[in-house]
């Protein structure tokens, strides 16, 4: 059989578009070797809680690895994911029309720069494009938010291991939030254990599979120590966090005091006849970035204090 190849020609971007692409390519490389501040702080906190030699050895290895990755500027985990962007953009952001091309080319260039692993396999034709971009990769979720001139985006490298536990289901209202609890907890012992704990667990509650699934991904974009603004959702976050910790998955699922870095719930309204629920997990190496640009491409990195690209 002839080897199939993926056609990609770098797009002709405006000068400003090129500038944004270059900043994002640099940021993608950075995300691959430096964890966001909230994740680093949480891991340091959890490390202190583990007392047994095996668990301590695992945490020591993790900390040493992150130091080496920062120092050598190499991806801290070999699975650098299929990139995803979750975006809120003002209608008057000047590069809105070019955005898709900018993001795809930023991943293309960032992949060479970092270097990232080639993680785009064209489905059905079943070949790796060898460029880390493909049909629908990177995936781009865009909300146009008012008529402002700014843009903000989460950049997420989800590896295969922590993508595997993802599941969505539509419950009958009779199953209630009790059913939501069962759904999330079952997933932790069946798949969560292999998804590189301590995990960040994202729970989405909505109407249908896709709305719940997207909410569960938005939940992973929030800081690990954040809390839902809804009092009941926040209560569920704390109950699930304690509950999953008490299962005692420990680092890497070897058993231990803590299983999760946090549980975040994102909810939207539901149809009266359904409760859509979804769970997504982030591994301990939760490589998610957050970047805000104004119309002149001045940027802020709220999750990476002191970093300049």
């Amino acid at each position, binding site marked *: 059989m002839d080897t199939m190849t993926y056609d990609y020609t770098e797009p002709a971007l405006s000068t400003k578009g090129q500038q944004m692409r270059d900043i994002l390519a640099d940021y993608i490389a950075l995300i691959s070797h430096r964890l966001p501040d909230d994740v680093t702080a949480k891991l340091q906190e959890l490390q202190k809680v583990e007392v047994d030699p095996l668990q301590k050895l695992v945490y020591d290895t993790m900390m040493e690895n992150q130091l080496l990755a920062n120092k050598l500027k190499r991806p801290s985990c070999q699975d650098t994911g299929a990139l995803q962007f979750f975006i809120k953009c003002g209608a008057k952001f000047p590069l809105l029309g070019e955005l898709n091309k900018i993001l795809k080319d930023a991943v293309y260039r960032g992949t060479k720069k970092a270097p*990232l*692993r080639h993680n785009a396999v064209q489905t059905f034709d079943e070949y790796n494009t060898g460029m880390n971009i493909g049909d629908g990769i990177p995936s781009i979720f865009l909300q146009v938010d008012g008529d402002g001139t700014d843009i903000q985006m989460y950049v997420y490298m989800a590896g295969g291991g922590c993508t595997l536990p993802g599941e969505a289901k539509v419950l009958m209202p009779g199953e*209630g939030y009790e059913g939501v609890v069962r759904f999330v907890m079952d997933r932790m012992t069946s798949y969560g254990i292999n998804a590189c704990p301590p995990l960040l667990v994202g729970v989405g509650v909505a109407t249908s599979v896709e709305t719940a699934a997207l909410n569960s991904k938005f939940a992973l974009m929030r800081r690990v120590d954040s809390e839902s603004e809804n009092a009941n959702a926040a209560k569920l976050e704390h109950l699930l966090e304690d509950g999953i910790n008490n299962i005692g998955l420990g680092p890497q699922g070897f058993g231990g005091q803590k299983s999760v870095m946090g549980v975040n719930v994102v909810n939207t309204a539901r149809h009266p006849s359904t409760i859509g629920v979804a769970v997504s997990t982030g591994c301990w190496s939760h490589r998610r970035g957050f970047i805000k640009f104004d119309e002149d491409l001045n940027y802020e990195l709220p999750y990476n204090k002191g970093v300049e690209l």
Partner: protein
Amino acid sequence: MKTWKLTTPVSDDDIKDIKIGDIVYLTGSMTTCRDVAHRRLVEEHRPLPIDVRNKAILHAGPIIKDLGNDKYEMIAVGPTTSMRMEKFEEEFVKQTGVKLILGKGGMGPGTERACKKYKALHLVYPAGNAVYAALHVNKIVDAQWKDLGMPETLWSCDVKDFGPLIVSIDTNGDNLFEKNKVIFNERKEAEIKKIQKQVSFIK
């Protein structure tokens, strides 16, 4: 928890006293081998182009730098979910004679049978520590089935003190993760009951 140092080739005798929960550091030959390579051997009946008898495989898809002239550098390498290979592993061990299967998370009954019958170990490298692991790869000595792309190519590596590797299945067929899972599931049921009492938001 005992700590062991193993050098390939590994004999049945070298690993007979190693138990689940022990720590191993590996020196010698280790070849990355994952989904499609297992499928090719077991289902497509294509012989593995690298000899792994009495040596180690790692369920992994690394990041490699191509230095030209068939020379490569290991940039980042770490284990991938071993359970994906479970359906092939018993037959894989039988056919290849591999002694050490390195990966992430637990494996199932097929691998338990293989470890017991053919004297092999399944070991877990703490995942996500890909730079630490890459720095224990001395060099890449061979690359086969490159048509599978970077993650799936068989990268044959010369490694030094590669670890910590935590033994998840030993030559008695004992399985650390399966033992833990029983405990985890018991605790889970108790936690679910506790939480469900507090979330009756629909009234």
